């Protein structure tokens, strides 16, 4: 294990996929993880990605066990609050129409994912662009309301389009 402040753990890149998973990236080594999502492009239609968690059995948690809140902040219209106490995802990811010059950028933090005695909490912030409208931001919070031990993360396209995106996972040292 590297002993710097921010340790690179794992990355994944997907091209023309319906979802992208980074498995076996959370462990007892860290309590806090940083995740970067970049270069998001839907390939056949506009699409949004969302984040789900992967448990220690390798299964994606897609049930309504997440609470989530997001402030949608467009540069072109009033801000909108999105929220749910029975969500099937923990946080919003990047979204886009089919403009591959956009890409976008997002940073997320997950707290205590590997713990089997604590919920997994998340916060996130992203900047993205809709070609038809303009730049928009999101400020996200989310929690998995079970004490499942989480070992990975998945970004899935919520639309019919396959996607291209890059994910990088880092652990934050605390000593």
């Amino acid at each position, binding site marked *: 294990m*590297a002993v*710097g*402040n*921010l340790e690179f753990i794992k990355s994944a890149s997907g091209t023309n996929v319906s979802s992208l998973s980074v498995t076996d990236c959370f462990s007892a080594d860290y309590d*806090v993880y940083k995740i970067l999502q970049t270069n998001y492009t839907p390939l056949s239609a506009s699409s949004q990605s969302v984040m789900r968690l992967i448990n220690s059995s390798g299964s994606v948690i897609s049930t309504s066990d997440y609470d989530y809140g997001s402030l949608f902040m*467009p540069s072109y219209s009033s801000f909108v609050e999105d929220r749910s106490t029975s969500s099937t995802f923990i946080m919003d990811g990047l979204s886009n129409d089919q403009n591959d*010059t956009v890409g976008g950028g997002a940073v997320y933090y997950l707290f205590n994912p590997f713990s089997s005695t604590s919920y997994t909490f998340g916060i996130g912030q*992203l900047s*993205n662009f809709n070609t038809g409208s303009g*730049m928009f931001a999101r400020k996200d919070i989310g929690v998995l309301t079970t004490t499942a031990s989480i070992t990975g993360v998945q970004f899935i396209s919520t639309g019919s389009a396959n996607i291209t995106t890059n994910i990088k996972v880092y652990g934050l040292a605390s000593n």
Partner: protein
Amino acid sequence: MPLGASRFGLLGGVADLGKLELIETQTYSSAVSVIDFTSIQESTYNVHFMTCSQMSAATDNIHTMNIRLFENGVVETSGVYQTARQNAGLNPSVGFNESRSTSANKIALQFGSGTATGENESAYIYFYNLGDSSKYSFVTHQSVGLTNDSYFMSAFGAAALPQASTVDGIRLATNSGNYNDFKVSLYGIAES
């Protein structure tokens, strides 16, 4: 929000300093109105991280954290930035409200600070895709500080320079006059 502590260690005699790699720190030494980072290693890093602290100006109610980006060595000053910001302040005239624009000539992180003790601003900022000439450049930010009336204030938001171009520099500036204190550090986040 940024967490973690620096630590050093030796692996086979080689120090691994982690993947948050310091590019440059600039601290106040004399009255200036802009803080330019012109060697940002944009071809090395796809994601940059900046911290700002002790940001204050010579006079009251001055915005100390306005961002502009350099493209091929020229700072972009036209109304081409798109911005969205949620303000959260105890100042009764500001409160909790939205700021947004599709034609801004800068990315403003927060409203004005002051000159009295404690009346300064801090922030962290992420930059994405600066060195990718085929992609737009994106920014996310969060800030905190005291106004010139010593009201607590905070803001978070994002911005884009919706031009497929290479960004090779970052400018921080006041909206008027000079700084009288600042400390700004720029990092690259290594990808392996």
